[in-house]
């Protein structure tokens, strides 16, 4: 192989690597320690809450009944997912009807309104500890800062989780480009990562209501 070919090959390797910088959908910029006041941290949290309570996120962050929800302007009224869907304790329908029956795994864009959306990861509900649907800002805040209920993550862990999911064209990224007539999550993925880090730097303050 000549040198140009090697250079081209290594570019391909770099592009194919899911976390290569050229591909990153969002980057992690941690604010300097002590640079975010509690007040600004709470404001950042409120933006985080707007994202996580958006139908694009909350519809699949449901509780121990393992039923995804249909809510938001594209559905009209709030109701459980049609077709009597129950994702079971596997949270991906392994013991009932697998989510993948309809939600294929593909990073192709979602273009058809009302069709089953797809992402680059296998479709599933979030773990049951991450129950967000119908929960208050204070409740979700307490869950997200509790390593027992957030997958053992500190603020960096949370931010990395978002960035890595996005690098696989996963659910997080899809929330901002859901396709069809679905409402998208507010702000942007980068703003969301920045807000998680600002909230974390402020000491993860939570509203008290």
């Amino acid at each position, binding site marked *: 192989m000549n040198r140009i070919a090697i250079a081209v090959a290594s570019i391909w390797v770099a592009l194919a690597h899911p976390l290569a910088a050229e591909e990153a959908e969002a980057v992690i910029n941690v604010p300097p320690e002590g640079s975010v006041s509690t007040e600004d941290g709470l404001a950042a949290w409120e933006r985080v809450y707007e994202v996580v309570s958006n139908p694009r996120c909350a519809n699949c962050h449901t509780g121990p009944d393992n039923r995804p929800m249909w809510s938001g302007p594209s559905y009209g009224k709030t109701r459980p997912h049609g077709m*009597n869907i129950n994702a079971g304790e596997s949270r991906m329908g392994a013991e*009932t009807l*697998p989510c993948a029956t*309809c939600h*294929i795994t593909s990073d*192709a864009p979602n273009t*058809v309104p009302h*069709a*089953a959306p797809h992402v680059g990861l296998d479709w599933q509900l979030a773990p049951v500890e991450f129950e967000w649907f119908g929960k208050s800002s204070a409740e979700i805040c307490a869950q997200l800062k509790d390593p027992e209920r957030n997958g053992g993550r500190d603020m960096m862990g949370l931010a990395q989780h978002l960035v890595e999911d996005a690098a696989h064209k996963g659910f997080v990224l899809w929330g901002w480009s859901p396709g069809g007539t679905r409402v998208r999550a507010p702000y942007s993925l980068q703003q969301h990562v920045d807000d998680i880090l600002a909230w974390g730097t402020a000491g993860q303050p939570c509203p008290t209501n």
Partner: protein
Amino acid sequence: MQLTVNGKTYEADVEDDMPLLWVLRDELGLTGVKYGCGIAQCGACTVHIDGMAVRSCQTLAGSLEPGAEITTIEGLGAPDALHAVQQAWVEHQVAQCGYCQSGQIMQAAALLDMNPEPSDEEIDLVMSGNLCRCGTYVRIRAAIHAAADKLKEA
């Protein structure tokens, strides 16, 4: 692209974003698989990929794993050796107009593979994504129980 359908290898010159449903029906002439909605709402287009029931209207040709084994209603059983689900369907005279039934049968066969003795509730959990405008649901359920018994005896 190369596809394996019902144990046969086919060559199809299609775009990556063509739904498998159209590859099967329009390119390969396998018209047992039906188009009902194109948006994962009805189940008429259900086929198996590596034994799992999927909606072929949602499956993009380009998303198929190389070597994936696709099974359609044409390959589930043979006319002289019907699959237990097909036999039960005939015995219970399940079909009315028949349009939804190839999807129903493919979904039911996958259900029994996973759960050889489903309760009524388990049948409803798995089969509720397969709509029947003729309302044959009661016979579908009875035929699934009958097919389960047949498979147990076999």
